[in-house]
């Protein structure tokens, strides 16, 4: 192990910013991060042991105790559940003879749940040693069980197990006209940097991650850098190191468009990043790819290599004097890293804890330098705009939301997949296209977004009405809203980064209170308490995760108050846990079973 880690540190130039990269390798090789490895890495990177331990603890894909040689994780997204996830994991657990959350005694295999893996249109899905598995069903599980019991190396597993489909159903503006590699950069050099930025301003392009910040403003602010730089002379300002980051940490349950864009439009995404570098003067870019998309990594590396060969990346791009290269960084299972400042922390090899903002990344981002962080789709759109011009893009969409939005549609519809729509399209149109009928409601923008009921289908996709980063989950009338809300609420409690109390404690309390109500232990005041808790978590949390964690409850409580009330008992109060059960251990140890050794769940005069 010593030599392995020594070599690893050397390949990573002993840089602490590469800690995640190093830990990923150690985890892959030893199936956990051994204590000795932590000691050694701490010495080699000259960082503290505890800093490494905090990172190991923080990310779901790192473990301080051994996992199986085959680490199986099953996606716990609501969409996987709708496709039969529970019976799949039960069957798997049974076949492999390992409990969920455990490692089999022989150490060969471990099984656990994981947050949405972004295969919502082809689930139930999972990961084996980080590689995506799709369309899990009983025959596939039988096959996987055999492969694991024979201890076949992953590269000898049949490829169809790992087949990930694009499912592009409705390509229009962007998806229909992919650019030729290099075309956007040629347009940039012909037109000039500030003129190209003017085209992007003209296009009205706003960030596609969901928040909708104007892309051109962001790029311009990054170019300007921190205020103090304005007093430097022009040459010094040009020397300023700037970074471009493409946020491909697509963790919002129900979103998978970036996976498809990176699989089939990677050139265009990289070209968008390079375009931005040309405009603002950056030399280094990063693609922060979520760990769940490990299967894309090799392919993306070869696209980058192709681009270097073609003179579209590296030194002196297209002989125009632009120097820029892109590095791919893999995440390690943390939803919070989709938040841009948490993502930057993660890029720096740390826990993904959101920073205080301001300062925003545009002035102080990666390593404290001005950094543009944009969504995959944003860079892709920017590349098309550079070629076709701002008016081309702005002619589509609404007044405040220009262009198109790429949606990942999944759930109860006959044609799940990728759809591109002009902003302003009504929800009903989308539902007709994807083959959804008997619809109960739709979760737009993922768990952190909004649940809309079937009375609201005339609403529009747009920043001014229903904004979404791309997630669009359809539920038909056979679904239970409280099950959905429960899944989302548990998701947030699991993904809270733990930094601020309102979110760390609040999301756990939300989960507990909701479980109490759904479990039938709720009484008169419990929904009010739930609502107050929601407001508290929403208003006091440090970042977007906590601020939106209560949305599933709030948006459904607003629309279906009776649903919650109907779960309540008509008594003033009932404990949310089994009171008599809580005495079981003491009863057993004291060897008692008299009347005094028991407690009624509800007081005698409280019965309904």
């Amino acid at each position, binding site marked *: 192990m010593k030599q392995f880690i020594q070599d690893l540190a050397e390949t990573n130039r002993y840089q602490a910013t590469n800690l995640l990269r190093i830990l990923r390798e150690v985890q892959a090789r030893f199936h956990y991060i051994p204590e000795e490895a932590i000691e050694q890495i701490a010495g080699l990177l000259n960082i503290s042991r505890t800093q490494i331990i905090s990172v190991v603890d923080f990310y779901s894909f790192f473990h301080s105790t051994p996992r199986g040689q085959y680490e199986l994780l099953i996606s716990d997204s609501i969409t996987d559940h709708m496709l039969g996830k529970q019976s799949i994991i039960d069957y798997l657990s049974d076949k492999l003879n390992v409990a969920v959350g455990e490692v089999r005694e022989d150490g060969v295999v471990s099984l656990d749940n994981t947050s949405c893996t972004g295969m919502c249109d082809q689930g139930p899905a999972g990961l084996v040693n980080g590689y995506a598995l799709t369309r899990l069903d009983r025959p596939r599980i039988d096959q996987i069980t055999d492969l694991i019991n024979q201890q076949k190396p992953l590269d000898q597993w049949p490829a169809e197990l790992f087949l990930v489909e694009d499912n592009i159903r409705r390509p229009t503006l962007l998806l229909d006209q992919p650019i030729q590699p290099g075309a956007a950069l040629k347009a940039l050099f012909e037109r000039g940097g500030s003129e190209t930025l003017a085209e992007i301003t003209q296009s009205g392009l706003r960030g596609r991650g969901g928040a909708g910040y104007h892309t051109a403003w962001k790029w311009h602010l990054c170019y300007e850098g921190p205020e103090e730089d304005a007093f430097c002379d022009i040459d010094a300002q040009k020397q300023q190191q700037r970074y471009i980051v493409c946020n491909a940490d697509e963790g919002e349950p129900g979103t998978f468009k970036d996976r498809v864009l990176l699989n089939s439009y990677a050139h265009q995404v990289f070209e968008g990043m390079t375009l931005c570098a040309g405009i603002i003067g950056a030399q280094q870019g990063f693609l922060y790819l979520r760990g769940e998309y490990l299967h894309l990594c090799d392919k993306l590396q070869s696209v980058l290599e192709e681009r270097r060969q073609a003179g579209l990346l590296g030194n002196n791009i297209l002989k125009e004097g632009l120097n820029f290269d892109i590095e791919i960084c893999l995440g390690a299972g943390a939803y919070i890293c989709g938040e841009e400042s948490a993502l930057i922390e993660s890029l720096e090899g740390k826990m993904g804890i959101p920073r205080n903002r301001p300062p925003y990344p545009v002035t102080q981002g990666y390593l404290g330098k001005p950094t543009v962080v944009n969504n995959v789709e944003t860079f892709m759109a920017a590349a098309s705009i550079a070629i076709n011009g701002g008016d081309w893009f702005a002619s589509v969409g609404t007044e405040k939301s220009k262009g198109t939005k790429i949606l990942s549609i999944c759930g109860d519809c006959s044609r799940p997949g990728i759809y591109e729509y002009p902003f302003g399209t009504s929800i009903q149109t989308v539902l007709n296209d994807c083959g959804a009928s008997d619809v109960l409601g739709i979760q737009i923008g993922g768990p952190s977004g909004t649940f809309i009921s079937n009375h609201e289908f005339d609403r529009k996709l747009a920043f001014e009405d229903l904004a979404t980063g791309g997630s669009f989950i359809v539920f038909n009338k056979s679904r239970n809203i409280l099950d959905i809300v429960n899944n989302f609420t548990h998701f947030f409690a699991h993904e809270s980064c733990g930094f601020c109390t309102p979110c760390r404690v609040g999301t756990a309390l939300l989960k507990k209170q909701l479980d109490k109500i759904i479990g039938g232990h709720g009484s008169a005041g419990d929904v009010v308490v739930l609502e107050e808790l929601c407001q508290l978590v929403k208003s006091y949390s440090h970042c977007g995760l906590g601020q939106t964690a209560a949305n599933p409850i709030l948006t459904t409580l607003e629309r279906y108050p009776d649903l919650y009330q109907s779960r309540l008992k008509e008594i003033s*109060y009932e404990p949310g846990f089994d009171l008599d059960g809580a005495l*079981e251990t*003491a009863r057993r140890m004291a060897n008692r079973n008299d009347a005094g*050794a028991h407690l009624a769940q509800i007081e005698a005069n409280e019965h309904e």
Partner: protein
Amino acid sequence: MANKIRVATTSLAGCFGCHMSFLDIDERMLQLAEAVEFGRSPINDIEHCTDCDIGLIEGGVCNSENVHVLREFRKNCKILVAVGACAINGGVPALRNYIPLEECLSEAYLDGIGVENPQIPSDPELPLLLDKVRPIHEVVKIDYFLPGCPPSADVFWKFLTDLIDGREPSLPYELVHYD
């Protein structure tokens, strides 16, 4: 005197620190006594809680007796108040929640250093321990919460005088600000 407001107090899994802090209202106790009379409370040794207006509960719920006492208070008090960190969150006694009850009892009564005649106490008179110490609002409905470890005398004073004067109790930030 029949119109005096009746207040009951008790300490469950607490340290009586909140009660001590309550007594720190010092001479204001005389003023309070003009408006208030006490029902069950360690202050007067009355054993059962009968009809009261306000019940003040210190400490969390660690055993079956705590549950019975808490229910008696809930049944007989119009307003029930969680007083102090232990009642609100479990506090110090809840530190045992991280250790399985079985281990706690074994350490105390069977395998611990210096244990003679090892046996788990078993007598119908003894309350049984719950597997976890709970905040009181997980067992009965609580109307108000007074934070602090302990809440200061001024918190008690402000809260009770608000209620006595018929105002909705509110604690200014200075009284619940601890860092």
